[in-house]
């Protein structure tokens, strides 16, 4: 029992979860908003070469992140090092972090594309970033719970 506890790896559990979260959110954006709703496309006619290259780098990073994250989680579980609640905290932090990053950096700073091409963009931008913030808060809440349960188990052991 004790040796199993020592095996646990909180920071790597969270990192692996975060990698999956970032990748999934990026994938959701591509599949739902690009492909199904077609609100925005992969090229909108006004973006520059630099923006296209940045977009390509982001896209590559998310694809590698999602696969790497899944295999890291599997590897942690195989060696009994996975802490579920930490992985979930990382997952939601990754989801929310990417959504906010996409909403602020991609849409507003780099201007790669907008959420939807309508006259009044503000509700879409607010909605997009509010969802990101909500997911981020869920992640922080889970992280807090994970820390509390760590403290409890330490005090029990003491």
């Amino acid at each position, binding site marked *: 029992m004790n040796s199993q506890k020592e095996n646990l790896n909180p920071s790597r559990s969270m990192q692996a979860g975060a990698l999956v979260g970032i990748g999934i959110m990026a994938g959701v954006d591509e599949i739902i908003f690009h492909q199904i709703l077609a609100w925005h496309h*992969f090229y909108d006619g006004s973006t520059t070469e630099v923006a296209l*290259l940045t977009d*390509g780098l982001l896209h590559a990073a998310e*694809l*590698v992140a999602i696969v790497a994250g899944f295999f890291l989680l*599997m590897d942690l579980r195989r060696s009994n090092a996975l802490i579920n609640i930490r992985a979930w905290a990382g997952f939601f932090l990754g989801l929310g972090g990417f959504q906010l990053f996409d909403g602020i950096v991609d849409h507003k700073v780099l201007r790669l594309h907008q959420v939807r091409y309508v006259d009044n963009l503000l509700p879409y931008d607010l909605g997009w970033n509010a969802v990101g913030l909500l997911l981020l808060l869920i992640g922080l809440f889970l992280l807090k719970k994970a820390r509390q349960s760590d403290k409890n188990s330490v005090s029990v052991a003491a």
Partner: protein
Amino acid sequence: MEHHSSHHLSGSSVAEWIPMLLVVTLALGYVSALVKLKSKDLTWSAWHSISFGLGTGLLGIALHPQLMQWAHHDLRGHMVQHLLLGMFAPIFLVLGAPVTLALKTLPVKVARGVTAILRSKVFYLFSHPVVALLLNIGGMYILYLTPLYNVSLTQPWLHYIIHLHFLLAGYLFCWSMIGLEPVPQRPGLRVRIFVLFLNIALHAFLSKLMYAYLLPHNSPHPEEQIREAAKLMYYWGDLSELLLTIALFALWYQKRHRSKNQISSLSVS
């Protein structure tokens, strides 16, 4: 794959079947090695054989005369062929571990020769992920950004060389990414992941450039066709990169387990 015996073939169409014949020869070579392996009582994972079979099947589709004809006048066809030859087929062929199979079944003298090549510095350099990346994605940038593509439309021999390059460079790249076959030294996992990341980004970037600037320039293809081809390259290319990434990490996962077990069994004894 086996319909080439059918019907009366005219002179020109016989030549069209030559690439297919080469693919069939490749598949037969693998099968005969498997037979030899069985007579030697050596084990071989069925997954390797299935994967290699899939790979040659994809090559067969890519080099089918009908697809070749479509690819010759339509950029979408060209792109489908490029995706099959340079991106999808190589993954499955590499996972078939043909070099390992050859080393196990070739006569000892020949196998030693192969090992010597694999150990050589030239081979290490050539199969280095960065070199493989340049050959693979660099070739595509040259093809679509220079007049080379338009020249290839009028020069059949150039057309064949480009196909061969797609296949060989794609194979070399997948081989250097998926650390399956035994070589004395191989660049570390971080290098390989970083190069794979660059490859995905550069492929996505090139396909968007093609879409945005209607590349290759001055080609006889209508605008809409170029856009469709660029989209095929982007989305289907992505799927193949996803498969390659999964293959890379799955092998890492498998090897890590093996080495861990070896360490624990060593520490026990």
